[in-house]
């Protein structure tokens, strides 16, 4: 391993300055559960890691109707906050799923997003919650919808000197429910063969879907917003038939490869099944949120 410096800035500006100075040779460091593993595995060499856990904007968790998750907030803080857990069960599905207890005490949703793995468990739930990524860089702040954040496996929209500050999750509307499920062959410690997050908002009649969002993990080069399946849901009755059809449509939007974790055919089937199953859970949550 190439020797590197550990930098612990106290302000956003400092962090941006260090990152800008080193460019590709520095990386932000939240929980480190991806970056340290990759560094040790020889994936890349760095001159500096920039620890964000001393930067207040990156470490605060604020619930105020909407939810603002600092980019370096570890998963356990999200699911152990009972108000957050009650309001955002669809996010908790992911936060309590990533790794095990040890990993959850370090790993952040921000790191999960920036790592830009197609199989990341945290990204699809953020997408169906219409989350916005708040980015700070040498040119100031910009805001990117999460579904546009990842551009290729391991690659995101951030430019030189830019970092993710926080994730802004809108307040759930009345009748909103969301859920995430992944498929793994074992019961723990696996990477998703496929994952699906679904959200729907019920109309006032409580039986019709006003709008819905579906996102797919591990079935394309990035986590995918399934635009057609999402659009299909609007105006449909919230029934198993609708959910099954949404699954069929979502499966046409998936572009999986076959690899050691599963075949492409299997992944397509999983998209159908998990779409149905997550929509059913989302419906239950939507009904109790009216």
């Amino acid at each position, binding site marked *: 391993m*190439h020797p590197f410096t550990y930098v612990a800035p106290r302000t956003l500006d400092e962090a941006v300055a260090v990152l800008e100075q080193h460019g590709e040779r520095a990386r932000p460091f939240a929980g480190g559960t991806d970056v340290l593993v990759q560094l040790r595995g020889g994936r890349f060499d760095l001159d500096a890691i920039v620890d964000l856990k001393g930067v207040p904007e990156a470490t605060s968790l604020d619930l105020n109707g909407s939810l603002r998750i600092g980019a370096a907030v570890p998963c356990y803080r999200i699911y152990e906050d009972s108000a957050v857990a009650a309001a955002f069960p669809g996010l908790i599905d992911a936060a309590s799923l990533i790794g095990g207890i040890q990993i959850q005490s370090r790993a952040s949703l921000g790191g999960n997003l920036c790592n830009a793995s197609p199989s990341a468990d945290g990204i699809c739930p953020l997408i169906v919650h219409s989350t916005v990524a708040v980015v700070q860089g040498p040119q100031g702040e910009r805001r990117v919808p999460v579904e546009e954040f990842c551009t290729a496996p391991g690659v995101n929209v951030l430019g030189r000197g830019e970092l993710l500050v926080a994730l802004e999750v809108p307040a759930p509307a009345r009748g909103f429910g969301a859920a995430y499920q992944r498929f793994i*062959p*074992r019961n*723990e410690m696996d990477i998703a*063969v496929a994952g699906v997050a679904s959200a729907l908002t019920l109309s006032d009649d409580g039986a019709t879907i006003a709008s819905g969002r579906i996102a797919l993990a591990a079935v394309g080069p990035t986590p995918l917003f399934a635009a057609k399946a999402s659009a299909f849901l609007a105006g449909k009755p919230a029934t198993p038939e609708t959910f099954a059809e949404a699954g069929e449509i979502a499966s046409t939007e998936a572009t999986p490869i076959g690899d*050691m974790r599963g*075949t492409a*055919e299997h992944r397509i089937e999983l998209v159908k099944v998990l779409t149905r199953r997550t929509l059913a859970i989302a419906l239950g949550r939507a009904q109790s949120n009216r």
Partner: protein
Amino acid sequence: MTTTADRPSQEFKVVGSRPIRHDGVDKVLGRAQYGADLKLPGLIHGAVLRSPYAHAVIKKVDVSRAEAAPGVFAAITGDDMPVTGSKVVDMVEEVTNLKWSSQRVMAHGKAVYRGHPVAAVAAVDQNTALEALKLIEVEYEPLQAVISLEDAMKPDAVIIHDDLVGDHLGEKVSPTNVAEHTRTEFGDPEAAFAEAAHVLERTYTIARAHQGYIEPHSSTAFWSPDDKLSVWTTTQAPFGVRSNVATVLKLPLSDVRVVPMEIGGGFGGKIGLYMEPLAAMLSRKSGRPVKMTMDRKSVFDATGPGPGGQVTAKIGVDKDGKILAATADIRYMAGAYPGSSISAATAGIFACYKVPNVRIDAYDVVINMSKTAAYRAPGTPQATFASESLISELCETIGMDPMEFHLLNAAEEGTRRPDGPVFPRIGNVACMEAIRDSEHFSSDLEKSPDGKLRGRGLATGYWNGGGNRSSVTISVNDDGVVSMVEGNPDIGGTRTTLAMQAAEVFGLPAHDVHPTVADTDSVGYNDLTAGSRTTYASGQAAIEAARQVVEEIKKRMAMIWETEPENVEFEDSVFRNKVAPDQRLTFKEAAGKLGQTGGPVSKTGTVNVRGSGGGSFAAHLVDVEVDPETGKVQILRYTAAQDAGKAVHPSYVEGQFQGGAAQGIGWALNEEYYTSPDGVMQNSSFLDYRMPTALDLPMIDAIVVEVPNTNHPFGVRGIGETSIVPPAPAVGNAIADAIGTRLYQTPMNPSRIMEALANKRNGKNGH
């Protein structure tokens, strides 16, 4: 030897109890010294540069820049190894080409597997060594990799070793990738098939699977200026490492001392040499002790898992379901050098049954992957996946209950094993009956509440177990505690099981025997900790040493009591004068009187246990639940019954049953080397090499069956390995029962189950 069968009422005080293990406190407190824990004055650290190609000519290796880097002490390549030319020798257990023994650990001229060491460096710390590897220049000319049976065996196959001379049914053949083709025949299977009421033949594919021991290999060596070599290593076979290192490095045997470190799992994978000779050569060059520790990726890429392969099996039965004949064609991929336990596969495949007519062909085939090694009952789980799956399908076809089939055809005392030996007293039927009488067997498989599919599967398995050479030395201390020195690294609790057998002879509590695992200079010769032999065979050396100690103390007591030694008897830990019954001393009291009666008492028991380890049979029953929408399999319930002969420490016996079942479930469901067409393993981490975790298994019920082994004074059988034999077919049979179609390939992972279900819907079956 008298048989325990003749004295069924043999009563035990210590054997059969469950004392706390002698090494428990050290392990719980983290004080036990595993391979990588070793610290020595002046220690430096080695690292290995490994071939990125599975098959390539090495045109040039230049280590000069690495050698010159700050902090680097030495670098070596294949040129530095003492043996480079082809030379066939008779090594301890096999005839082998010495060149291969050397080149397996360090390539010379050619890399024949991905991960093959090409060079190594030693530096002030591990990171410096790893960075120095980047300065080594290697020029490769990649060759086509041979990674399947088909590629290896086709007429115009790419040849891996020009100098491999195959033994094909006694005929010398070269060039070839088939190192060996053997055949075992008895009776006339073709005639018997012609008469059979039903014949079924199927072909099965079994994946290469790694032992997955938690501790990566770690070896340290110090080459002293007087050319004496010390090696500290994590091994099952310190004496084997001694002789193999001596051979590969051309050293006199006794100039090599091997210190076995505490071992974090082996399962057969820590028998062969890996980094010991490299650390030795680096030490010789640097004058420093050199430590080398693998990372997990290297363990997967470059150590020996169990072989994968293909097995075609055929069975014919009469109208009542009695076996008339069986044949098999077993093809194992040994990896880059020959030796894939095809003889054990031949012995094991039909061992649970009476087979009057049989023929078994077996092929040992080299391919461009790391050389396979022993893995718990080597060669047998693969072959048994075929035979036990076939029998289950046959029972379905002829409408016979598998339990009834097994009992009707079960091998018993006097049955000829298909490859020749005749069984002594065995527990095959007793294990089946134990399952039949279990609550699990009689319970109904409840329907799943949410549309999942459930099924139940049964399979049997066999492993013979080994005997061979052991030495144990027991010395009596003044306070009546005895110290016991043995030479088998303790993998499964054998310090305690050996101590318990000695304690039984002395009538002492287990903890009054203090066991130590010693280095090769400090104890007599011991064969390896493997083959289920340690408790069974080294236990007999411990018993022998203890008995000699008792005889010696009888002489001493005779001196004190001024009588003949024949008049001294020893029972319940008390020496008595038969002539003057009030003259009695306990073992502890007697121990205090040795100084004045001729000095210390210390005795060595040596054994060379011949022939069978007695044979341990098992029957496993499993319930599974399959999610037909995702292909996921959940193990709901698992019962393993196995014959232990006499369980020395029942908890350890149960642990072995459970551990083997857990590993076998891994083979069944998810474990495999997922390899690219050019021979590169893609899933070389515990994240993607999916062994079952604690959350994936139910509590495995262990039923300890005890049919005494006539070949051990206490009736003990070796039990460590059989438990991995039945699980894969048992789980496969349960899956078939659940989903109504069969998989003929391990692992039976979710993608394959979904494919089988799709095929079933389309009216196709998988064979």
